[in-house]
């Protein structure tokens, strides 16, 4: 296990250039460039606000702020996973030619999306401030929840990226699954509005705890449920180890399968 970290440390420059390349490459050749990092989530929030507030009449107070606290972390979650599904195939050319620690690829997908998310957090701040909700000391818990989400995504990314090399169907399946999961996560609605018989589904979804956490910090202005976040981190750490073991087993065949 120690070797894994040593190897990654030796290749830190590759990780760095890879993350930079992914961030820069994302909006390359587009007219507005980095502005899309802000415009994209804003437009998305607008779409959901129109549908759920104006058409479906969601009674939630400050609904746009409520929405943005859920939607922006969700985008981080879903783009990381769907890009993980493709990263090995996109980089197939290099994988077949040179050796480098393969885990660099899923890690740099999640890390570059994490950087994007951190930039988008500015939007949450802007909404919270301009809607008059304001910022409180609970903001200090933000890094903890961010780390929980980052680690969760690493674990998923290890598994998704490596399995997709062998079973290409998974790429299509993931798209549908994420759509389903979007509605099984309290993003456009709050947990309280669900009948208790359905609420247990949300309890099984790790993203529920993370989005509730962000929402407590920014929207409800209360202390998030630290205990469940810590339990989540503990579970996720185990998941990372399992995910890495699966990844490591599967990566040996990458060059032949791609």
């Amino acid at each position, binding site marked *: 296990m120690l070797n894994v970290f040593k190897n990654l440390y*030796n*290749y*830190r*420059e*590759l990780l*760095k*250039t890879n993350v930079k*390349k992914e961030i820069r490459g994302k909006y390359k050749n587009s007219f507005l460039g980095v502005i899309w990092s802000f415009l994209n989530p804003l437009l998305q929030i607008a779409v959901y606000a129109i549908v759920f507030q104006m058409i479906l009449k969601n009674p939630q107070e400050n609904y746009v702020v409520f929405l943005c606290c859920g939607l922006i972390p969700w985008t981080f979650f879903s783009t990381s996973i769907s890009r993980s599904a493709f990263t090995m195939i996109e980089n197939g*050319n*290099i*994988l*077949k*030619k*040179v*050796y*480098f620690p393969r885990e660099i690829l899923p890690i740099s997908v999640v890390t570059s999306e994490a950087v994007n998310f951190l930039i988008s957090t500015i939007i949450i701040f802007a909404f919270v401030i301009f809607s008059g909700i304001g910022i409180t000391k609970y903001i200090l818990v933000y890094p903890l929840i961010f780390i929980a989400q980052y680690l969760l995504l690493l674990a998923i990314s290890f598994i998704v990226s490596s399995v997709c090399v062998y*079973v*290409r*169907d998974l790429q299509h399946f993931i798209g549908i699954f994420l759509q389903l999961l979007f509605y099984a996560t309290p993003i456009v609605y709050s947990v309280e509005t669900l009948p208790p018989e359905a609420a247990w589904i949300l309890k099984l979804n790790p993203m529920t705890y993370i989005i509730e956490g962000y929402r407590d910090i920014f929207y409800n202005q209360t202390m998030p449920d630290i205990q469940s976040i810590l339990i989540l981190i503990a579970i996720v750490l185990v998941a990372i180890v399992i995910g890495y073991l699966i990844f490591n087993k599967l990566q*040996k*065949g990458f*060059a*032949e399968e791609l």
Partner: protein
Amino acid sequence: MQENQEEYSIIIDDVYKTFNVYLDKANTIKEKLLFLFSRNRKEKREVLKGINAKIKKGEVVALIGTNGSGKSTLLKLLTKIIYPNKGRIETHGKLTSLLELGAGFHPDFSGRENIYFNASIFGLTKKEIDDRLEDIIEFSELQNFIDNPVRTYSSGMYMRLAFSVAINVDADILLIDEILSVGDEHFQNKCFDKMLELKNQGKTMVFVTHSMESVRKLCNRTIWLCDGKIKMDGDTEKVVDEYIKAIS
């Protein structure tokens, strides 16, 4: 065991490699399920059948053999791009392969930026690359073009840049596949001299080549692969003579 680590750079221990050759590759679940019932579309090709070799630190070894004898597969196994089905491969020291030059080059970025990309794939840190940048550019003789995008390079220039990066990585073990076909004659001679220099520095090198002339000049030991097995392993002169006799 400790003694081995000191003495040997590469230990190849009874290595077998089989490729599944799919005549029609199944990538989706549906196809995979269907293929469960019709196995005749897959065939196994044994490429390496029990290779044993130990290469000492500082040895320069040539791998020779006809096409399809498993030379390149063996090199790929050594770089850990692919893994053996059976057996074990150990390498001690930093390893660089010059199998596919210019992997990770991005055509839209400048030569200088690509040096950074390429060298980072070889596991160098920013500082290490900074230190080598001048040497790399000088060796490639591309001073005037180094800030142009790589897509504007001729194929010779491209290879020169790629080779210059790979050769300046400062690895302990170099794996080289047919590189003496890089660039024009002047550059080839330069590469050759660089190889000799690295040899004198005590680097371990493994060559795959069809040029018996360079094998004789550069390598003290030659391994002759034939149909996935080692046919002969020993002093270059002897092995090369036998090999030439056998193929002519």
